């Protein structure tokens, strides 16, 4: 009886605290020496999701996925800001680090949320059946430029070691994202200036994605961007048109030039 009462108090407290917060609370985020704690990049991603919340709610995603969930701060925040009670979405989070998947489960539990968590490399094992199904994907990849041999190490290094230009893992994730995103799928990706976000946007543009930098933030150590990608029919048609002949190549370079201008404008727009 006493136990039941305690549980009831605990439950009421968590329900009450959840009503107050639309994102994960740092003091409820679990941790482990081998798991990356939420930091500026995690906060930037969650702030970008918060700023885009109205659009996300209107988007009515059925399947939301995080690749590289680490402490679980981002997937928990996403579940909370979409409203865990009645949004009716399936949340799935992956991480290559066995400690991280456990910590993510603890963080979700502490917030009264649920996501399915899988210990795997990027989305290995899920690519076939989740193909063209994910409506919202969030990724805070290991983006720090490091020697190539540091990529793929176990434990906490997997959270940041990004190889040359910090692009080794990002370049593996983007084709997987392209495969998994549904027709209305959105991808939110954290990058660093060193990752060459412009080139990433152009690369995705060739696959038919429009993109926008929805948040830019400079910290003492790094300059972070959160890029939102979405499938866009016009972009896809342009990409198909622009392949091939010399004439088309000139046309492409003109478009890339135009895109550069738009890109810079968007940075300017999102500067704080």
């Amino acid at each position, binding site marked *: 009886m006493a136990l039941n009462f305690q549980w009831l108090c605990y439950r009421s407290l968590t329900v009450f605290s959840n009503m107050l917060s639309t994102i994960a609370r740092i003091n409820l985020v679990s941790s482990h020496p081998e798991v990356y704690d939420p930091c500026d990049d995690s906060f930037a991603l969650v702030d970008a999701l918060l700023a885009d919340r109205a659009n996300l709610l209107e988007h009515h995603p059925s399947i939301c996925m995080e690749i590289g969930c680490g402490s679980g701060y981002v997937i928990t925040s996403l579940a909370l800001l979409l409203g865990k*009670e009645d949004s009716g979405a399936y949340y799935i989070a992956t991480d290559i680090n*066995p400690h991280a998947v456990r910590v993510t*489960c603890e963080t979700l539990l502490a917030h009264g949320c649920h996501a399915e968590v*899988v210990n*795997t490399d990027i989305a290995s*094992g899920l690519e076939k*059946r989740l193909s063209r199904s994910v409506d919202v994907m969030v990724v805070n990849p290991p983006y720090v430029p490091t020697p190539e041999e540091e990529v793929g190490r176990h434990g906490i290094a997997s959270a940041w070691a990004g190889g040359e230009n910090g692009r080794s893992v990002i370049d593996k994730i983007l084709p997987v994202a392209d495969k998994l995103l549904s027709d209305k799928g959105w991808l939110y990706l954290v990058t660093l200036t060193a990752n060459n976000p412009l080139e990433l946007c152009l690369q995705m543009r060739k696959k038919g994605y429009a993109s926008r930098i929805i948040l830019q933030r400079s910290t003492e150590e790094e300059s972070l961007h959160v890029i939102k990608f979405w499938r866009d029919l016009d972009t896809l048609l342009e990409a198909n048109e622009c392949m091939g002949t010399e004439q088309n190549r000139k046309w492409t370079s003109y478009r890339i030039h135009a895109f550069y201008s738009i890109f810079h404008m968007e940075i300017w727009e999102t500067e704080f």
Partner: protein
Amino acid sequence: MRLLTHNMLSSNIKGVTNGFPLRIEVEKVIEKEVDFNIDFLRNMFAKIEWKALAEASRTMGYSELPDDAESSMLDSDEFLRKFHHALLELHLEEGALVCPETGRKFPVNKGIPNMLLHEDEV
């Protein structure tokens, strides 16, 4: 791990062509109540491989799902309740997922499937 996730997982070992569905080895099943959401079930129905779900739920000790299902059944509240229970409320807490082609076991501990491959399987 919910059976919804089981339905989305395939064996990822290099060279395996028929990696779905993974056979379930049960050590511990737990049930957790989840809010009933008809729109969600209707959305998911189109993505689900029914036979794999029915078979998996039987392995987990729940034999109420019919062998075959079609979208017209989504009008039946009774069917939706059973579908909801099998898809979302049954959790494989401890056990393994077994590749149908090679027999390789992917362990499931504390509800988390481990799909990490050994070097010679990638």
